[in-house]
C-alpha cells in the first residue's frame, strides 16, 4: 500500500482525472473530496461489503435448507452466546 502524508487542503492525483483532496481534519474524522469522471463508481467500503452480503443473502436456498436452518435457530440460545462474544 502506498502511504502518503497530506495536510488539509492538499490532494493526490490518481491516474487520469481522479483527484482526492483532504478538505478538513477534525478529531478522528477526515473529510475528503473526490473529483472523478462520471463513469467511475465511488463507494464507501462498508456499502460495498453490504452489497456483497446482500447478494449472498439473496442466493437461492431450498425450502428444505430453510427448514433445517429454522430447526437450528429454534434450538439455539442465541442471546446468551452472543453477549458472551462481546465481552471479549
Amino acid at each position: 500500500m502506498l502511504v502518503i502524508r497530506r495536510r488539509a487542503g492538499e490532494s493526490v492525483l490518481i491516474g487520469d482525472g481522479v483527484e482526492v483532496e483532504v478538505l478538513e481534519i477534525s478529531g478522528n474524522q477526515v473529510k475528503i473530496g473526490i473529483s472523478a469522471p462520471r463513469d467511475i463508481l465511488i463507494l464507501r467500503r462498508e456499502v460495498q461489503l453490504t452489497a456483497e452480503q446482500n447478494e449472498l443473502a439473496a442466493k437461492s436456498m431450498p425450502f428444505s435448507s430453510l427448514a433445517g436452518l429454522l430447526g437450528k435457530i429454534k434450538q439455539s440460545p442465541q442471546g446468551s452466546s452472543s453477549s458472551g462474544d462481546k465481552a471479549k
Partner: protein
Amino acid sequence: MVEIKTKYFGSVPLDSGVLVEFPAGLPAFEHERAFLAIEHPRTAPLVLLQSTTTPDLCFLALPIPEVDPDYQLLISAEDRAVLGLDQTVDPPANTDVAALALIAVRPDGRVSANLMSPVVVNRANSRAVQSVRWDGVYSHEHVLRLPPAPADTQEQPCS
C-alpha cells in the same frame, strides 16, 4: 384480496405480513422498493422479507435482539430522514423502530448475520432502510453459533 407470489410459500394474501417500503432500495438491490415482512409461527423467530415485485427474492432476517441483546443502533442523519425519524433523538431506540439482521448462508455452510448493516424499520410509517454503519463496531458477517442439524433432518447439500 390481492395476493403476491413468494419464494417459499407460493402465493399469499398481502395481509399475511406488513408491507414495508424501502425508499432507497438496498445495496445491490436498489430497485427493490417494497417488501412484505412476514412473521409466521412456522418460521419464528425468522422474519421473511419477501419482495413484492420479484417472487424469487426473499431475504431471511432475525430481529437483532435475538442475535445480540446489547446491540446499539447507529443511524446516520440521511437514513433518519428517509425513515422520518427525529434528527435530534439519540439513540432512536425510544421510537417504534425495529432492527433486523439479514441472514446469509455461506458457501461453507455457516450462517451469518449482517450486524454492520441492520435493516431498520420505522413501524409508525412502515418505512425502512438498510442502515450501513461506518464505525466498524459490528461485523458484516457475524457467524451464528448454531447447533449441528439433527441427524434425522434431510438437508440438501447446498452447493
